[in-house]
């Protein structure tokens, strides 16, 4: 996969928290109906939103539809973004992930998806195929690599495949009580690893 999520000259998300491209400042302008700001927000987040939704849903057509919903939701609800409660990336990606997971768990989608996925669960490893030179990707890859195999697998299955923790437990053959701990420990280690780097 050689496509770049951002066009040249535009900083990628996660690297642009300062200056005129500051996502939080842009969202404040979007909340005031500023179309130019929304275009920049689109260019910053369309790649990650589409990538994440596609990662979870797999189906390109459905992913495009959900990504469109998410991006328009960002326009519609920009006034509700509160920088005190988290970063712009976190706000947008939370909306995107929730939407994708809602879609997965709605029954019709679940059936279709199960058929596509049988046999066997996704390994979660195919995130590697997307790894390019971007700093974020290297960091994520390195930090995921620093987890125990079970921690890494459970975080990936929960987040990238959109499985609930009971489903993750079943897929990995691990007791329910244990999986909650694995997911939390894994995510905490990821957090600490990414903070350091």
């Amino acid at each position, binding site marked *: 996969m050689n496509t770049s*999520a951002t066009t040249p000259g535009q900083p990628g998300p996660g690297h642009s928290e300062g200056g005129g491209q500051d996502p939080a400042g842009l969202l404040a302008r979007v*909340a005031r109906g500023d179309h130019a700001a*929304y275009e920049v927000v689109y260019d910053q987040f369309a790649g990650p939103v589409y990538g994440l939704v596609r990662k979870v849903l797999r189906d390109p057509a459905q992913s495009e539809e959900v990504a469109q919903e998410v*991006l328009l939701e960002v326009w519609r609800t920009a*006034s509700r973004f509160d920088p005190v409660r988290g970063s712009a990336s976190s706000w947008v990606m939370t909306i995107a992930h929730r939407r994708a997971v809602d879609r997965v768990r709605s029954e019709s989608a679940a059936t279709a998806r199960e058929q596509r996925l049988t046999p066997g669960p996704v390994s979660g490893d195919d995130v590697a195929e997307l790894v390019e030179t971007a700093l974020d990707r290297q960091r994520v890859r390195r930090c995921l690599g620093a987890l125990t195999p079970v921690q890494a697998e459970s975080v990936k299955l929960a987040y990238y495949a959109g499985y609930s923790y009971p489903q993750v437990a079943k897929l990995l053959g691990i007791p329910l009580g244990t999986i909650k701990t694995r997911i*939390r420990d894994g995510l905490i280690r990821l957090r600490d690893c*990414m903070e350091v780097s």
Partner: protein
Amino acid sequence: MAAGHELHLLTGSYALDALPDNERAEFEKHLARCPSCAEEVRGLRETAARLALATAIAPPPELRARVLAAAPHIRQLPPAGRGPLSANGLRRLPLSRAGLSAGILVLAAALVFLLVTNFSTTQRLHQSQASNQAVAAVLAAPDARVASVPAAGGGTVTAVVSLRQREAVVTSAALPALPASEVYQLWVMTPAGAARSAGLLAVSLSGTAQPAVAGGVVPGDRLGITVEPSGGSPQPTTTPVVAMPVSA
């Protein structure tokens, strides 16, 4: 209901949207009471966002034109100010069969509550925002139903019940003010006569209760409110001012 310690372990699953719906609602109630959990969730959400950014791929080019063309035709939400229901949990509104106007009554009550209540610390604000997600989850349930009844002694109590989620959101308008030594307490009362506390109602000077979530509600139960000594009671000690039946 799981013990607090065990619930705390769910921060990671919650941040990854990996909780089944019923557990998510329960955990969101826990979040409202657990500032350290809320803080941890916040940090873990940031970490999850990093995982998301790593998946970026170029979307189909035509998506850009479509989205940018559609946006100007979509009305934007006004700022929510410090309204408690600005939490993103509200995304799943509108209420379906529940009757939008009654839902709005509850939302309005919540907003009024915040406006008349001085939330002096950000911690309390965080707590209220987290609890709003639990409230919003009930309001957004497809089977949500609304009922309002007058309270003995004055005022009105409104409940939104989702039997599927086994939860009810209760609020009030114009409940009489109580002396400092007394509080309003919410109960889930079973047909057999047992009562389970669903917590104290935070009632403003104008008699508006901050929406409270009662869990484990099944058909045949009643939602009751009693006046209790400050701090609440393990069991009701006075005749309920309201006892709303929950029907299927």
